Each structure stands twice: as structure tokens, then as C-alpha cells.
């Protein structure tokens, strides 16, 4: 079985996101006064072969903790899709 793990890594709410701020300012300059805030994160797709969804999910979680996210300042979420 193969699964696609759709992983989102985002800065924790308490961490200043200067990229998001800069983009927010640009949107403000474009006249989008309705935009209140912008936060920028990463989207990562990982294809994992595993026995079942549980095993693939465990692998995805492990690689997030070990490498893809720095949990001191980032949160992550995983969505699995069978492919």
C-alpha cells in the first residue's frame, strides 16, 4: 500500500512570522483592507509505502518530529491519502 502524507508545518502562534507580515503589508498596499493577518507555512508531500494507514501515519509523524518540523517553534499536521 502507498499513502500520500500531506504535511503542513506552521510557525507556532507565539512566534513572529516576518514573511507573513511582509506579505500582509503588500496586500494592504494592494488595497485589501479586509485582510487582517497572514501566516506563512510549508506544505510537504511525502509518499510512504506501508502496511496500513496506521503504519504510514506513524512514519509520517516520526519524520515530522525528527526532521520536517522544529517543534521548538513549529507545529505540524498530517493528512493521509491512499494512492
Amino acid at each position, binding site marked *: 500500500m502507498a499513502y500520500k502524507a500531506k504535511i503542513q508545518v506552521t510557525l507556532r502562534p507565539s*512566534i513572529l512570522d516576518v514573511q507573513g507580515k511582509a506579505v500582509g503589508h503588500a496586500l494592504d498596499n494592494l488595497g485589501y483592507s479586509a485582510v487582517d493577518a497572514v501566516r506563512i507555512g510549508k506544505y510537504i508531500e511525502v509518499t510512504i509505502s506501508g502496511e496500513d494507514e496506521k503504519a504510514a501515519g506513524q512514519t509520517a509523524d516520526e519524520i515530522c518530529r525528527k526532521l520536517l518540523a522544529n517543534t*521548538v517553534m513549529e507545529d505540524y499536521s498530517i493528512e493521509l491519502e491512499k494512492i
Partner: protein
Amino acid sequence: MAEVTIGVVVFPGSNCDHDTEYAAGLFDGVKTRMLWHNDHDLQDCDMIILPGGFSYGDYLRAGSIARFSPIMREVIGFAGEGRPVLGICNGFQVLLESGLLEGALSRNRDKKFICRHVPVRVENATTIFTSLYRQGEVLQLPVAHGEGNYFAPRETVESLEANNQIVFRYCDPEGNITDESNLNGSVGSIAGIVNAKGNVLGLMPHPERASEALLGSEDGSRMFRSAIDYLAGA
């Protein structure tokens, strides 16, 4: 003086490796070696330096991929034996990613890449890397980074404070710690920290770029000298 061998790790994307080798090698009795990231052997090195640059292009996060290079397994073991490891700028980021030091570095508060000489106050002159400085001395050291905004959870910062592990802070020219002199927004104006054992130091400023009068400051050379004196006497 006993001979001391200093190893400088070269990651793909390191760009301060030769400057660091040069600055560390300015002293009598010091041999230097360049250690490739794919090597598994620290050879006869008495001290390891992780230099500045953009290891692995800073892909994913600064230092995050370098941390898993073969040589880092050896460096982590070496540090575990209580032997000296110094991480400068990107090297500091690698030390944090590898868990040898606590905390993380995110983008500078004002969104800018900052490249200039800044005053830095010595908070702990008792480490093996800072013994030739005076407590509270204000150094002139260059910084060159876009992601030097040190962050750690409050409990971590409190324990760093309590254990005297904060070694350098950004300050104004008179040595005062102010919000204005905190150039990148680091928590507590932290510019450099040491591990609990005191053998692993990471800092954002570049001591190797302040190692000769010609460079505008010689304040960085005493950092290498302190560690070399320690090793020669050991």
C-alpha cells in the same frame, strides 16, 4: 606549548570555513584540519568548529539537514565526551537542530539580513571559550544573518539564566541591554549560549571575522585563544 589540532567541518554550502580555519590557525602550536561532512572520522582533532554559511542551502530550516550528515554523528559523540565544540552562525543553528544546545533560531524581527559590526557583551567569562575576556566586557563582533532571532520556551531561558549558560548578549556601545540594541529580536537579547557542561558554545556573531586589526576588530581572536589555552593546558 603543546600542540592543538582544530577541525573545521565543511558542509556543502559552508562559506566561512576557510576564514575560520585561518583565524583558528593564527596561533603557535595549532594545526587545523578541514573535515568533510561525509567523513566518519574526526581524526586527531582536539576541538571541532562548525562554521558559518548556508549548509545544504538552508533547505527546510537553517541547519536542519546538516544535523543528519555523517560527520555530525561523530561531533555529537565528541561533545558527549565533554570535548570542545564551537558553532558559529550557521554552526550555531546546526548545534540547536542537533539538540546539543537548547532553543531555536527564527527570522530576524525586522525582516532584514543584518551584516555589520555590533557590540556584544560577555555574560560569562568563565567558559573555556571566553576565559580571556573580562566579565561584562563589550566586544565588537560582526554579525551576518537573516535568521538569528533566538527563541526558547520560558522555562528553558530561565534555566539558561540560572545555570549561567548565556554567554553573549547584544548590547549598546556602553554595554546596556536595550530593546533597540537587540538587533534581531532574540529573547533576552541572547547572542550565544553554552551547554550545561560548558563544552559546547554556539553564537551568531562571527569571531573569525574579527581576528586581525585589518578586519576592524581583533575581539574574536581571544575566543579561539581561550579554547586553545584550555586545550594546551589540559
